[in-house]
């Protein structure tokens, strides 16, 4: 039976431990502690991030539907068309007017399973912008005629993008890694597929009607914004938005993907473009695997990495080299991008990329070097806090991966814990030639 003194000693100890714990929990996170996240009765979530950006607000509308949900071959690029419909609200002139008056800066980005509409504008325009966004989402007027117009606009945009070698290679890779692709899939004419999509408005609009529902959306407001006031405005604008009621049926996917390759020759003179992608499992931000893959990408392909130094700095055979483990909640892709000066070097570069993974799996990275790489990843990400759009972007990236806006702190903690052995393990686990998706784009005249 412990004595009173013992009990008292343990009570003090627990109190001190509590203090220590609360100090850790209360340690300053990446985003301010007064961020708030509220879900409205219709399922729409509203996240506010107060940030010192006088007179400016960044609004991100996250819709949890993206390329990953294009589950039928004829639906390829539907998320792009959808984003265009929402962006213009079916009324280009109105959109132009908003841009002209409020100088609104807007963009759309696509993750595997999400589409993000981002807008930055003067805080005085918040009410107008929210009302306009509600008009686009709550009463979207997705008529067949507007859908056709959006498809046509997207076709022209796509043509322009495909005219640039890097843009073409990225699109080919997107098709190659899409859920409907298989090793037997022949090359897809993306423009042709998209044009055909315009002929099937009913099916496409029905899909969009399921995608664009409040329970699948999050509004992230960063900047000079106060939660209660913002919530009131959002409720007024989006309160009448009805839940979908129909579940979006997206089949689960496995990590096992067979090798796929696409080689394209085009007229003209340009550097060869190489894209190599390996499937990686979907991860939470703080799962050690994700940070280890991020560290591996930086360690090999970053500016001080051995492969980068050899190919880009010393031999100068490669103009650009980078790698990114892009994760999603189900499956991600570790993608390597290279621009190769001489097309005849493509095979060599590809083989050296593969060898780099083998080396990384056998030779452990030095601890000092690993610490440098980890610092680099962390500070590069924190550099986004330079402007309010970057603050919103950080929250959105976290939301898309984990469903929470504030997971970066856990990611950085997990990143800090990555060991040389983790790097070796992931190098040996995922970079198998039999699971590679490769796109090469070379000039026609090249050997």
């Amino acid at each position: 039976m412990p004595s009173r003194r013992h009990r008292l000693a343990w009570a003090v100890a627990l109190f001190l431990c509590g203090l220590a714990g609360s100090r850790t929990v209360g340690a300053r996170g990446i985003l301010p502690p007064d961020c708030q996240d509220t879900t409205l009765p219709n399922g729409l979530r509203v996240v506010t991030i107060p940030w010192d950006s006088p007179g400016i607000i960044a609004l991100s509308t996250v819709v949890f539907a993206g390329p990953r949900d294009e589950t039928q071959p004829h639906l390829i690029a539907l998320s792009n068309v959808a984003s265009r419909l929402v962006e213009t609200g079916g009324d280009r002139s109105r959109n132009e007017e908003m841009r002209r008056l409020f100088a609104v800066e807007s963009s759309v980005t696509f993750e595997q399973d999400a589409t993000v509409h981002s807008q930055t504008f003067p805080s005085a325009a918040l009410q107008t912008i929210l009302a306009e966004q509600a008009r686009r989402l709550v009463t979207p007027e997705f008529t067949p005629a507007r859908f056709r117009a959006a498809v046509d606009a997207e076709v022209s945009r796509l043509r322009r993008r495909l005219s640039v070698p890097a843009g073409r290679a990225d699109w080919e890779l997107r098709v190659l890694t899409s859920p409907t692709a298989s090793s037997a899939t022949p090359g897809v004419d993306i423009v042709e597929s998209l044009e055909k999509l315009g002929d099937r408005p009913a099916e496409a609009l029905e899909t969009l009607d399921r995608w664009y529902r409040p329970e699948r959306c999050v509004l992230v407001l960063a900047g000079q914004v106060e939660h209660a006031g913002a919530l009131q405005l959002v409720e007024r604008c989006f309160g009448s938005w009805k839940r979908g009621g129909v579940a979006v049926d997206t089949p689960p996917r496995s990590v096992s993907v067979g090798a796929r390759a696409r080689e394209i020759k085009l007229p003209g003179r340009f550097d060869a473009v190489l894209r190599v992608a390996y499937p990686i499992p979907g991860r939470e931000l703080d799962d050690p695997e994700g940070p280890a893959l991020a560290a591996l990408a930086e360690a090999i392909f970053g500016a001080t990495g051995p492969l980068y130094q050899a190919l880009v700095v010393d031999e100068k055979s490669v103009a650009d080299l980078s790698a990114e483990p892009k994760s999603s909640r189900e499956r991600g892709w570790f993608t390597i991008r290279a621009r190769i000066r001489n097309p005849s070097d493509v095979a060599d570069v590809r083989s050296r990329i593969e060898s780099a993974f083998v080396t990384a799996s056998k030779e452990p990275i030095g601890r000092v070097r690993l610490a440098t790489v980890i610092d680099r990843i962390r500070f590069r990400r924190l550099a986004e806090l330079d402007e309010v759009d970057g603050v919103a972007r950080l929250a959105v990236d976290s939301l898309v991966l984990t469903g929470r806006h504030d997971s970066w702190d856990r990611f950085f903690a997990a990143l800090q814990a990555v060991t040389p052995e983790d790097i070796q393990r992931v190098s040996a686990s995922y970079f198998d030639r039999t699971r590679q998706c490769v796109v090469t784009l070379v000039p026609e005249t090249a050997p």
Partner: protein
Amino acid sequence: MMLRYLARLLAALIVVLPPSPLVTTPPEPFEPPRIQVGGRRVLRPVVVPPIRVPLTLVPSKSTPLLAVRLVVQVGSTQDPPGKEGLAALTGMLLAHGGIRGATHEQILERLYPLAASIQVECGKESTAFLATMHRDNFDRLIPTLAAILVMPRLDPEDFKRIRNDVLARLDALRTENEVDQLASEILEARIFQGHPYGHSVLGNRASIEAITLDDVTRFFREHYNRDTLRIGMAGGTASFYVDALRSQLGGIPQATARRSYRIPEVPRREGLEVTIVEASTSHCAITLGFPIEVHRAHADFSAVRLAVAALDAQQFGSLSSPAGTRLTSPISAPAHASMEVTFRSETVDSTLTPEPRSRPHFALSLGGVRPDQAARMLSKTLAELDRFVAEGLSGEQLDAVQCRLENTTTLGSRRLDKALGLAMARPLLGRADESDEAGGTQGSASRDEVNAAIRRHLAPRGIQVVIVSPQALASKMATDVEAALRDSSTGESTAGSPAYRSGLRVKVLKAGQLATR
């Protein structure tokens, strides 16, 4: 007994507790760190009194980042004749040429884990060195940033590397994608012919090849001193770091002699002078402009700024049509022509922080114009400009543009380094009003004031036009342009015959004849 328990527990907790998390309170007074190379201390700390030079602070409550900007009041206007580009080359060698005790590569290695870099912006009248960092890295980056001004390496090998980079950039200006910039640079050369503004900040091939390392060293010693330096910091706890920054810069010398340099007035030329420049391009770039007196301290600055914004937004909307198309790359599809109206009271490159200019000019540029449409587009553009000057702005147009300009200005300064650059520009040229944007008032002027300013400043007696054209078509274009402009002076223009139309001169410059290249 219990006390012993407590002592043990406390000792254990002290060991177990993690090191202090990211700074939650303002940092301790800063001790200037030593400069390290590869983890080894090779230099003694600089023990000198903190420098006292003009300081600008832009605090921000939220961000953990700090932006630092060191501006030296020397730019391309002080390039000696025959050595055009010397100021820019000096700035670049300082920023990317290493410091005493550390090579450029060693500095890159040092900055790599910080995900930071030291950048340089070279302008007509100033050179700025800047870096943005997480405040945790202040003591790892600032000594290096300061050292590039206090003890630059000025090594012959680095000099060669940087000079080759500049030559490569000059060559790149000739490629298809840079045609618009080439047109802008030649326009400036034409407008400011015989004036210190009349050459490119980067110089030209011959002048860059003529510059030696001795020239750079001499230029650095002559111009980089306490008289010409201004410093600025922006970010969460910027004020806490000021003394540390001042200390690090303590080694910057006093000026040996007080120099006053005044940019001369711009000589005015009358008439319409069209210069057609041959380049290897498939499409044309057209740009026209003229000098104006309205710098940021001028009473008409706001009015002219509003007028130019209105001109860009409304009057010329119809010109951005698919009429002129171009191939954007070897495997491209057609794209629409682009159009931009600018009031060059600041730097040309919109990605950089505006550098206030004491000798501004007005410019209007059309990009991606199909060669067979170029003469017609130029004629129509001039006619639209004439009409704008004659009719001015309506009250409704002015309200809309005022609102837009205010919003654009607010959004444009949201990045930390940009906000700092704008704040540092504010006191220059006599403007210190907080509501100013980069030293000029943001845009409140009545309709009468704006229309009077339009008539006063946007109706010149002389206009320079530059057309960058495909080589094979330059001569034919000269004929077409001459015909179109002679017709338009009596035809399309509804504004009578403006003064500049009194004399038309068209000439063709071969690729090898470019004065600015």
